[in-house]
């Protein structure tokens, strides 16, 4: 059965490794690269705790083989904050008490990040639908949804600032 060579970028850093084909992407990230921020909360692709971005889109890393990520760009929760500063989305989660135990949080943030990057002005209903694949047992979701809605304008400002345009 052997191993296969994979080469990908994770949080902007090129990575190369030999992996067994059966290695799930989430375990490659956690145990292979030591990026333990991505969590495993179920075994049926139900809970979304393992959500990462692949080529900018949210995916469940427990339902992908590491070999399927060969040649891709993966972003994990460790790659969201920049220069020691919380990303506006992370800050919104803190300001709106969008987390308690924190275990679903990386997956929630990544699902929301992928969503907001393509939907900069969401409604509450659309945010809830965007989270249909992410389960939380602590918060009752209200504050998670509030966090994401609060982050949207802040992220637009953030993106504008990055592009050298006056913030919105």
């Amino acid at each position, binding site marked *: 059965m052997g191993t296969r060579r994979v080469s990908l970028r994770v949080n902007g850093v090129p990575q190369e490794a030999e992996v067994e084909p059966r290695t799930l992407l989430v375990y490659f990230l956690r145990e292979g690269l030591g990026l333990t921020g991505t969590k495993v909360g*179920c075994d049926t692709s139900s809970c979304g705790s393992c959500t990462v971005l692949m080529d900018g889109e949210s995916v469940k890393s427990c339902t992908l083989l590491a070999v399927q990520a060969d040649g891709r760009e993966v972003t994990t*929760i460790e790659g969201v904050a920049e220069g020691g500063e*919380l990303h506006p989305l992370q800050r919104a989660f803190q300001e709106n008490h969008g*987390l*308690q135990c924190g275990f*679903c949080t990386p997956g929630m943030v990544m699902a929301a990040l992928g969503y907001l990057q393509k939907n900069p002005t969401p409604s509450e209903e659309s945010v809830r639908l965007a*989270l*249909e694949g992410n*389960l939380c047992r602590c*918060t009752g979701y209200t504050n998670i949804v509030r966090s994401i809605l609060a982050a949207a304008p802040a992220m637009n400002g953030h993106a504008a600032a990055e592009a050298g345009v006056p913030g919105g």
Partner: protein
Amino acid sequence: MVQAVQRYVGGRVLRKEDSRLLTGRGRYVDDLALAGMVWMAVVRSPYAHARIKAVDVAPARDMPGVVAALSGDDLASEWAGPLPCVWPVTEDIKMPQHWPVAKDKVRYMGDAVAVVVATSRALACDAAEAVQVEYEPLPAVTDVEAAMAEDAPLVHEDLGTNKSFTWSHGGVGDVEGTFAKAPVVVKERYWHPRLIPNAMEPRGVLVQPGLSQGDFTMWSATQIPHVAKVTLAMVTGISEAKLRVVAPEVGGGFGSKLDIYAEEALCLALARRLQRPVKWIEERSENYLATIHGRGVLQDMELAATEDGKLLAIRAKLIADMGAYFQLITPGIPMLGAWLYGGCYKADAYWFEYTGVFTNQTPTDAYRGAGRPEATYAIERAMDALARRVGKDPAEVRRMNFIPPFSEPTALVTGLQADSGDYEATLDRALELAGYDELRKEQKARLDRKDAKLLGIGISTYIENCGWAPSSLLGAIRYAGGGWDSASVRVLPTGKVEVFTGTSPHGQGHETTWSQIVADGLGIPFDDIEVFHGDTAVSPLGFDTYGSRSLAVGGVALKMATDKVVDKARKLAAHELEVAEVDLDYESGRFSVKGAPKQARSIPELAFTAWQAHNLPPGLDPNLEASATFDPPNFTFPSGAHICAVEVDTETGKVDFLKYVAVDDCGTVINPMIVDGQVQGGIAQGIAEAMYEEAIYDENGILLTSSMMNYLVPSAVEIPVATLDRTVTPSSTNSMGVKGIGEAGTIAAPPAVLNAVADALSPLGVTDLQMPVSPQRVWHAIKNATGRNGGPA
């Protein structure tokens, strides 16, 4: 230097836990790795009840990377005692012995029969599959009433019966006489389904054996590191003095991690045997079998009342499903609700009893609310049944039966002295927020126009008792542990503060709340305070976190320790300023001489001079630190009113939320943001219980809801926004006036939801409605009541 005057207590202070959790730097058990670490996997029974004929571990032992494969017999010599149950509720209770790995029989689907240890997670999975077990299947029993039948299969043959015990509250007043004479008697039967807790982090254990000293460090996803240290020493025979238990970041518990599990004992024993670090991480599907379930109680609830709805007596008799074994406090769970079946109402007579029964299913134990949701569900649904019976509005029936407002201990019908309460105030506020009268008008309009979507309104005015104490009372009800907690506060020479707490948070934000208490007490900046928890080597004294006890017990202990530090600092300040202690004013961390406010010392200054010890008053230690223990004189009794409005599609049976209002009273609030978060999350869990979740076994004891795909933990799409408000009635149990709030939402919500659906359907003649109110269940109820396939009234 004078500290800036700041008041953290009562403020919406953002959590100091969050920045690590939001950036992926929280370290949960599965995030830890040690050199030379090996992985344990557990071989589990696919049968609910079977005799173990043979266990052949040899095929696993021969596989690559496998370092051990052991059966229950192979491991028998490792145990100094069985897994603990610390609440033998009666003298004559029948207690089975519970070993970490089964030897003779398996008694529930998921019961452990062997373990394998290998050098990787994948190889351990492969090896577990290779173990060959020969079973002789036996008939299983899954229903609590069937389990008590004469010819029922016996879960534990040596006990001779599946009935373990009956515990009685003992009664208050003339129960039989009151029921016999009462003009109105309401009899209801409620099945409270088994629930799977679903903390988002499954359990996990990592044990590091010491290199030469015979010591062990165990990291476990547990709510109770302190209790684990004591009890696991007894199970494994490891000296308690050589066992350190650490609860690192823990991803939720809800009672499911308030337990001592086989896998903790197994990792300790295997680490001892192999002298290597051993790790076990629970799979979610494994969690559904091997981690405790909650509830599973059949409740017969009776109310005696006058014709106009005045409550006279309450009688509750329960049969509780213990599952196949006792876990830590399994037999005591219904007793946690034993004094609450009278709710917040006046009555003359009270009876409560419950019987614990073994079945071939996963053991039950504490799940958020534990006993109190069952009690609240029974009384609040029965109050609605009473209102319908006497033809009154459910709000009115509640109002006429409320205990009037009180601020000093006052007796409930059950005999407990509640600490404080104003039940009518919370109900009034909730009715106002809900727009109750408008909702009733809308309800009538829909009925009048024969709308297929009916509207229902449900009220739940709950009271609960949490922060179980004093310890002497716990002893009197045969609970083996105590109800106290402790805290230490140490002001370091540089003015920073270390706080050590006996509580063990797993999402509750103690680092933040505890810092608020200390920051205000010592006038020290919030960010200069570090809170240490969940490590028996660092905070050795404690009884951990569960039962909404942390603030009302551990938080109060912390306040006491903080006050002691201030007292000590005052002695030093008086000495240094050469005045009497009574001549000092204290405000926000600064002592100043009365009439000469410029002569002053701050707490950080005093911490430094205490450390220098150049000029200490006689008898004062060279530090500013203090410890305190608090064993409360009573419970705290949070209360509140939840009102829910639903729309029921009578054609499909689907229930949608229109409104959910919650007005809670948890006494003094330290951090309103965290309190609201607890309420909001608790309500979601209660709604999940009311509408979505149920562990379903077939008649052979096979768990059908075996994964998150068919055990329906709801998402953001399903859970409505609740409108929250508060009344504040300080507790008389503790100096801070605080009451627990961790479980209130889960206790209050299920009857609010069920009452709403029942209210919508009562014009169709529906009287029997059980949880969870799935669309199918609603459709069946309508069909049974009307003989039709649904549609408007």
